[in-house]
């Protein structure tokens, strides 16, 4: 089974990549640049040096968290468009814990900061869950609305409550709360802020896989996600399941702060994420709910994201954005195309499968 799936799993990204590279090449040619040089630069800047690889990992870290968040919600039949807001409140809570409990030892403080982020994200995610469970109002609208609230609220906190003059960030967290950068023990990553929270993200992915596939809670969430009717029938109460799923999803998104706050800047900065939460939806879609898929998709998008910056001196930003969007769209489209094809094949096989 898994061997049969392998070429299919590889076919998706390769197809999409090829297609979007071609589309991108047309645009690059149109502004009179050499597409081959642009692509070569993109590759060189991302995978061509340890620093570039470090940047890709650094960019992938938050995407793993938000990708898992969205994937978990998807599998429970929910669309969490609110990962962006959840990661803002989560990152803020992480920073708050870090600059408030200055006396605590590192072994306590760093995990406490991460926990604070997860809890804040969970609370923020649970709100639309509760609204859905209690009043049936759709989570898509509520999560979008809560994004605005979260971004404005944290912005207000930074510029009015925890003010550092002439900045838009909070005070710095205590040194004990910092997560070490990889360069501290792997000097070749020199300069790249990739840090221990990448490992945390991988652990979260493993935890997610365990939760969804091996635990009763994961099973029940999947049942509700595929068919609320069957869930009810199986004695699973939909309301609590929805709230739990949204809170877990929010908690995952809320851990994004470990990368930016604990591992990189050491403070919360207003506007630090431009759409990592929304990108999580694309990651989750591409990954089709699998944890390994989320990690791979996040690495891929991380590479695109850093690559975009690298080639920005050669082509205008708008073009870079077109390129990025083309890649993402075609990856998702082609994953549907390939899966459709595979499903049809499978059905043709099983259509006759009952005949001995």
């Amino acid at each position: 089974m898994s061997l049969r799936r392998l070429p299919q799993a590889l076919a998706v990204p390769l197809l999409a990549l090829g297609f979007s590279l071609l589309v991108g090449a047309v645009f690059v040619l149109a502004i009179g640049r050499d597409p081959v040089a642009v692509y070569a630069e993109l590759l060189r800047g991302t995978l061509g040096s340890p620093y570039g690889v470090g940047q890709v990992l650094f960019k992938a870290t938050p995407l793993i968290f938000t990708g898992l968040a969205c994937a978990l919600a998807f599998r429970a039949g929910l669309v969490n468009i609110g990962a962006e807001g959840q990661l803002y409140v989560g990152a803020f809570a992480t920073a708050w814990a870090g600059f408030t409990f200055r006396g605590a030892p590192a072994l306590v403080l760093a995990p406490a900061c991460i926990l604070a982020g997860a809890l804040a994200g969970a609370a923020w995610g649970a709100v639309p869950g509760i609204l859905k469970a209690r009043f049936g109002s759709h989570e898509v609208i509520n999560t979008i609305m809560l994004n605005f609230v979260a971004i404005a609220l944290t912005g207000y906190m930074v510029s009015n409550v925890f003010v550092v003059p002439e900045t838009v960030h909070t005070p710095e967290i205590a040194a004990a709360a910092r997560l070490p950068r990889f360069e501290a023990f792997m000097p070749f990553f020199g300069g790249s802020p990739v840090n221990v929270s990448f490992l945390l993200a991988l652990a979260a992915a493993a935890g997610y896989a365990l939760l969804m596939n091996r635990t009763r809670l994961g099973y029940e969430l999947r049942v509700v996600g595929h068919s609320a009717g069957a869930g009810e029938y199986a004695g699973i109460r939909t309301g609590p399941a929805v709230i739990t799923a949204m809170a877990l999803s929010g908690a995952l998104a809320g851990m994004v702060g470990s990368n930016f706050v604990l591992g990189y800047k050491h403070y919360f900065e207003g506007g630090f994420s431009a759409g990592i939460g929304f990108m999580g939806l694309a990651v989750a879609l591409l990954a089709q709910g699998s944890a390994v898929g989320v990690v791979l998709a996040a690495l891929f998008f991380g590479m695109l994201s850093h690559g975009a910056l690298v080639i920005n001196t050669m082509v205008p930003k708008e073009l870079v954005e077109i390129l990025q969007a083309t890649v993402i769209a075609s990856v998702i489209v082609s994953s549907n195309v390939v899966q459709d094809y595979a499903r049809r094949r499978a059905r043709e096989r099983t259509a006759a499968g009952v005949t001995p």
Partner: protein
Amino acid sequence: MKRAARWMGWVMFGALALLPLGCAKKQDSKPVASTGPRVGLVFDVGGRGDQSFNDSAWRGLQKAQAQLGADIANVVEPGEGSDRESALRGLAAKDLDLIFGVGFIFTDDIDRVAGDFPGKHFACIDYALKDGAAVPPNVLALKFKEEEGSFLVGALAAWLSKTHRLGFVGGMDIALIHKFAAGFQAGAKYADPNVNVIVKYAGVTGDAFKNPTKGKELALGMYSEGADIIFHASGATGQGVFEAAKDQKKLAIGVDSDQWRPEYDGVVLTSMIKNVDESVFQAVKAVKAGAWKGGVQELGLKENGVGYVYDAHNHRLIPAEIHDRLEALKARIISGEIKVPKE
């Protein structure tokens, strides 16, 4: 379906076949015929095209290209917050003589990258000074006394106001923008102790600088409360202020660059200009002359770092007599006779 998959397979094959070709070929960067310094610049997120601060920096570079023969090909627009440092780092790894970060938000990023590349020169516009921390030796912190320019346009507005009511639309509610408000209010009170200034901010996030709809809403509110001149310090949000002024046939004051446009003729009273372009140009010039120096440069009226616009487009809005009084006021600030508050 099968056919579609096969078709896409061929497309992919073709594209991937091209790739190694490209890698094998030497990068064909066209040699730029420049003799002057090589300069890099990183805009703020979403900054380019703001018709204000970021564009002004870009004009400075263009002037350096025209007059000093500078190579200005290395310009980056980052996608999100964490890209600022990474973009600076990318430029620092290249063979460049000076690298700009446009905006106070680059402060920490420049500090960090400057530390890792001690041999490279950096400049940060609106660099934020930290208590007790020194500016790294290879960083030029360019700061402006916005309050001085704001003081002058505040006085001008108070003299011209018929309602004795003025408005101030700030972008993000932060200390940097508070300086504009403070200067404007002080200038207005100085000119007319009975004047009343309504102060509002568009928001608490970076988006507050990119929200013309909100700008218009705030401005319309102020005009309806009786204000007849509004000064904005809100980036692209200010476009909404101008629209409101035009609708209401009232006046507005621009910021950072000269914001007069043909469609806003008779609407834009003047602009409090921040000569970012000039400071960028001067920094490049210093590099070319071999006279580059790190440290803090605070540019006020005296250094021509800030000022106001008085030209053919708006001289009919400002009587000569008022202009004279304004120039006299400017002289008194330069001489230090008047101290303009920052808060």
